[in-house]
């Protein structure tokens, strides 16, 4: 049983116009076995939260903390965080020239596990996982994400999720840009990983449709760098009907800045 705890997190970035605060006090606790959905309009800071957890150098944490089972995540380098069990499925996975998928997957697995996977079972595992996600076998020969369509990139992110078996998966709009079939395939992959019982999931999304396939235990509404409302799966249904407008500044809905889901 693991716990990822985010406490009163403030994050800013450096822009040409100076420092800009994007996260304005985010608190959240995720435990193994839980699925949390973070929903919010574009530009509300969802990717900033995800990237900050993963350690992207662009984001400066000005105050607050992130801990994994009590360990200070903010002290860890990007690769250390991944090896500690954090996985970020990126909203826009980059193409990495020169590195074949095969080589990449094996190198990452070796780094995460601290030892090389047994070649024969590993090759079999990769093949099986790819087949389930309906990724063509020849993708392993191609360079990481190079020339992949948007949907293919998302599947490959989930492929890694299934192979690397993290303690916590942060999925940044994995659903956006997917057609219905791909959305199902990808959701099934997340559910398979989740059902192994050793993972907590932070599902970031703009739309509610992925929540038909992945059932959240908690829903957090994210607006302007803060969690402004939270509840169970039913909150997502309400958002589906009403949208985010009621949370817009000056919309008159009195929403207390939410406490952490404790």
């Amino acid at each position: 049983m693991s716990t990822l705890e985010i406490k009163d997190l403030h994050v800013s970035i450096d822009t040409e116009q100076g420092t800009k605060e994007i996260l304005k006090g985010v608190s959240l606790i995720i435990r193994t076995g839980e699925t949390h959905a973070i929903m919010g309009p574009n530009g509300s800071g969802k990717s900033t939260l995800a990237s900050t957890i993963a350690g992207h150098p662009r984001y400066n944490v000005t105050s607050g903390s992130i801990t994994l089972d009590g360990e200070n995540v903010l002290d860890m380098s990007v690769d250390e965080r991944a090896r500690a069990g954090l996985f970020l499925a990126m909203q826009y996975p980059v193409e990495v020239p020169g590195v074949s998928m095969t080589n990449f997957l094996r190198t990452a697995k070796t780094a995460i596990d601290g030892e090389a996977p047994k070649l024969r079972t590993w090759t079999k595992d990769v093949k099986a996982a790819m087949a389930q996600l309906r990724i063509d076998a020849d993708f392993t020969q191609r360079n990481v994400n190079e020339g992949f369509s948007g949907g293919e990139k998302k599947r490959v992110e989930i492929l890694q999720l299934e192979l690397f078996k993290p303690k916590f998966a942060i999925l940044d709009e994995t659903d956006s840009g997917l057609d219905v079939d791909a959305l199902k395939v990808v959701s099934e992959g997340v559910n398979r990983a989740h059902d192994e019982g050793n993972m907590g999931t932070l599902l970031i999304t703009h739309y509610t449709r992925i929540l038909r396939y992945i059932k959240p235990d908690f829903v957090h509404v994210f607006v302007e760098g803060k969690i402004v409302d939270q509840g169970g799966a039913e909150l997502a249904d309400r958002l589906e009907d009403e949208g985010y407008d009621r949370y817009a500044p000056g919309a008159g809905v009195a929403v207390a800045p939410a406490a952490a889901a404790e």
Partner: protein
Amino acid sequence: MTEITEEKARIGAPSQPFINGFTEEGENLSPINTSESKAPLAGEAVKAHSHGGGVGIPDSSRAGRLTSYKLADFAPLTGMEEDWRFTPLKRLRGLHSDVLKGTAPAVDITAPEGIIVETVGRDDARIGSAAIPEDRVSANAWENFSEATVITVPEEHQATGEIMVSIEGSGLEASAQHFVIIAKRFSKAVVVLDHRGTAVVAENVEILVEDGAQLTVISLQEWTDDSVHASSQQAKLSRDAKFKHIVVSLGGDLVRLTPSARFSGPGAEAELFGLYYADAGQHLEQRLFVDHAVPNCKSNVLYKGALQGRNAHAVWVGDVLIRKEAEGTDTYEANRNLVLTDGARADSVPNLEIETGLIAGAGHASATGRFDDEHLFYLMARGIPEKVARRLVVRGFLNEIISQIKVPALEERLTEAVERELAASEN
């Protein structure tokens, strides 16, 4: 972000009609492209020289380039010339302007049984049988070399191991060097030109691949940091010949290679591969020419380069010419660069000239990708430490060329050399 530009063949008529009374061959081709060519050190060479744009072929055509054995036929370089525009002439250490009277790098050859190795004088009949200088530095080398090394693979001979040619420089005085490599009919061999040490040298390598012969020539440049090397490596390919040329440029202040493959008989194949790794301040240039002058030949070009450090500069220019008579040609050329740090620059210019529509295929691609912080972030976010991530990228990228060498000991040596280049960037 990786950017890939790819272009399919332009198929169409020659860009300009020929003037009556002149064929392309008659006026514009060097003697090595005509079937009745003799060893042309003397009169024919002078006759053969031609200036682009004079007759029939537009100035811009690769076929129109001046070729001559005489230095005086080439005007002094200004740096404005199309084929010198990327080269820092100041760093040539006189290869283009001085008499090349320094001692040429020492040649030491280890060859398997049956290979004939000779050191010959300037008047040897085989000199000039496969090449004619196409630029001033090459002509300067031609005028100044004192003796040449001739390596012959006899008819139908299958060499049992590679022919290792150690070329070891020991000084910075400008010098000239000359090699002739002849693969006789139906022979098979691998020749490694292993350039090392300290040198300022202009070199001509003539390569003759006779009917049905299979020849691989590997040119390794692992010079010291202050060395300057200009090398024209011209291959003439006869009917059904198979030629593979691999360039690996790692060390040297300025290395400029101009490999070419000229088809003189149908059914021949040429593969030209290259790997270069330009560090801070290094200038590594390669200019290729594939001349499809006869029907039904095949060529494939792939050069890959990594660049790192301030003022690391790589230049790749790939000229492929499909002449009117070269029907059934199948050709593809590609150059890929991986820029690892800021301050490095890669120039990549593929040129495909097609004078007949009756070809099997023609294409080119040029891509310069940056290994940037987002790539690093992606790999590290999967648990891969930074150093490993960088190595993964560069090794994977360059291995495609190294794996073409097929000489295990050499592949290993070059893989290690690439690792050292990488390690240097981590300090």
